[in-house]
């Protein structure tokens, strides 16, 4: 069959930012869907957002309430959200309570009433909330339940209505549930309390007719309503941009030389070192070098505010205030507020879209991890992988800093075992030489080609990082306790 012979399934906007991307472009029109999850996890809010995003006076939404949350209370709370438009009630959006019908006439009565209302107004959207309470009426009679769901699905599909059935289901109820079998789409919402944080996640368990993004996606409910954050950050469908391998200056010419001519465009570079070694300063010099070349940049900081960051840069003669004002630089201060990586990433992505940034600094990964909800910290490495892959895939060059505990017996590459996620690694460390604590740097890894093998001493001066000559005449520099060439190594 040719592509043009196949029926085209329209995709409706869900009204939930981020969810259309997760669904593969939107919700299939005329689909029969279930939103399941425990009480309070956001099922009704999600359905309302869809309703207000799509309902029109010509093809209104019929929102049937059945027992469960009283309709007046539902309206009382839902109208607090930004998407809820009171002026569209009773024209585009109509609420109908079927509690008495269920009590008096059971499933058959419910089906008759829904059919009557559907035939009367020709809705584009139908919601039944809570469908679980309807099903309880048929509890124990699986055949009755199956017939009811099948007939309801048939009715609403015939009338070209996109349908949501909302229910409080537990995960253990998933197998063999006839409701889930009939559904075209099954959305499962989770709300998990981990330590002092609440983590909300969404799983598209089933979606007929189109490919959705698999896995668990975090979401948040704010005054504006629900916002979902795709695991792939909405970048999965984009073609990977193959950088032209242009080299970007890090802002310190000697270090550019050590890197073989700069950082390859689209690489992820890690600068690891202990406190005070100049990681953040190098990151700032990298951003400033880009700005001087007309390349907008983003800095995600977790430990200081944007104005403090700019002030610190100016003490090294780096003017970030002007680009901050003209919009070519954005400093994102991500506060530790139960974030998921995807939420933080969404903020970074929005800033990238807004500024057209090609350089991104994450200062630091340890701060990033601390900003996350405890429940997300265990996934940090995996999340970081998705983030780096997604961003470098669209040609963004990322410089991340990582604070390392200093060891004076060995050279640790990085914690989190994340070095495999980065293309390039620069290691900064202290060494004890002749009664002084001095600093050395080395390039450990350059995925894109050759790099210097030198261990160079450097200093933090008023104009930034100043790199000196290769340290010769010493062995065991990388342990931090070198010996003069010819002397024996220190005992561990």
């Amino acid at each position: 069959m040719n592509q043009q012979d196949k029926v085209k399934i329209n995709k409706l906007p869900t009204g939930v930012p981020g969810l259309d991307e997760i669904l593969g472009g939107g919700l299939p029109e005329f689909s029969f869907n279930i939103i399941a999850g425990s009480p309070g996890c956001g099922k009704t809010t999600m359905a309302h957002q869809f309703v207000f995003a799509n309902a029109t006076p010509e093809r209104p939404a019929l929102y049937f309430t059945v027992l469960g949350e009283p309709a007046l209370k539902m309206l009382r709370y839902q109208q607090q959200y930004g998407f809820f438009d009171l002026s569209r009630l009773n024209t585009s959006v109509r609420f109908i309570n079927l509690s008495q019908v269920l009590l008096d006439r059971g499933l058959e009565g419910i089906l008759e009433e829904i059919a009557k209302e559907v035939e009367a107004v020709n809705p584009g959207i139908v919601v039944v909330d809570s469908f679980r309470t309807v099903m309880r009426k048929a509890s124990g009679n699986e055949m009755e339940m199956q017939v009811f769901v099948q007939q309801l699905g048939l009715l609403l599909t015939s009338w070209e209505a996109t349908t949501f059935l909302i229910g409080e289901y537990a995960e253990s109820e998933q197998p063999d549930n006839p409701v889930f079998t009939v559904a075209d789409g099954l959305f499962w919402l989770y709300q998990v309390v981990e330590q002092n944080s609440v983590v909300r996640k969404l799983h598209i368990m089933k979606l007929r007719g189109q490919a959705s993004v698999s896995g668990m996606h975090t979401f948040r409910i704010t005054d504006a309503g629900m916002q979902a954050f795709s695991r792939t950050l909405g970048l999965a469908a984009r073609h990977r941009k193959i950088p032209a391998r242009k080299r970007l200056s890090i802002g310190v010419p000697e270090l550019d030389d050590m890197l073989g001519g700069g950082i390859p465009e689209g690489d992820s570079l890690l600068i690891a070192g202990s406190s005070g070694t100049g990681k953040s300063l190098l990151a700032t010099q990298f951003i400033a070098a880009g700005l001087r070349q007309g390349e907008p940049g983003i800095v995600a900081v977790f430990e200081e505010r944007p104005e403090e960051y700019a002030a610190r840069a100016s003490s090294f003669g780096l003017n970030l205030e002007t680009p901050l004002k003209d919009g070519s630089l954005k400093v994102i201060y991500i506060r530790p507020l139960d974030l998921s990586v995807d939420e933080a990433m969404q903020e970074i992505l929005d800033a990238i879209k807004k500024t057209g940034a090609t350089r991104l600094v994450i200062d630091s990964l340890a701060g990033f991890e601390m900003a996350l909800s405890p429940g997300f910290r265990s996934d940090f490495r995996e999340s970081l992988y998705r983030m780096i892959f997604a961003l470098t895939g669209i040609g963004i060059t990322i410089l991340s800093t990582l604070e390392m505990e200093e060891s004076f017996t060995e050279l640790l590459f990085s914690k989190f075992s994340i070095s495999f996620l980065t293309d390039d690694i620069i290691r900064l460390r202290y060494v004890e030489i002749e009664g002084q604590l001095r600093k050395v740097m080395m390039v450990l890894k350059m995925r894109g080609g050759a790099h210097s093998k030198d261990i160079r001493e450097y200093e933090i001066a008023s104009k930034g990082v100043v790199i000196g000559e290769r340290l010769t005449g010493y062995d065991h520099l990388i342990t931090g306790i070198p010996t003069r060439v010819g002397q024996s190594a220190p005992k561990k």
Partner: protein
Amino acid sequence: MEMRSRTTASLEIREFAQRLVAYEAAGDVPGGADLPAEVRVAEKLRHPLSRLAGVNGFRMLLVRALMLAKEQVVSLSPVQVKPDGSLEGFSDLGNRTEAAGAGVTLIAELLGLLAAFVGEAFTRSLVLDVWPDFPAFDTEPWRKSES
């Protein structure tokens, strides 16, 4: 913030209810001419509100409104809410003028309760759905009732 007083209807809501009852009284009433206007108003609100909140949901609301109204107008004591949400006992109220005032109090409390739950804008739009030509949005904002 203090909890609400026992009465939900402000002076503005009472005035709105009075105008609504007068509007209904002046209108055509095929088949309902034997019912007082305030009862017709309650009856006309019953259908959309039962549809929205369920028969029982509307009935509970009206029972509460009636209780609040009875605290202000003792003569409403014979009035009851039937299981389907309709009113009975209005015909037992002797003086017609007094009964009309009592009915306005009941309607005002019902509107006040609705406004407290779902907001003034939605309540006014509900009224407009039933009486499309009634100037529901032309009056003063409904302030919260004072103790």
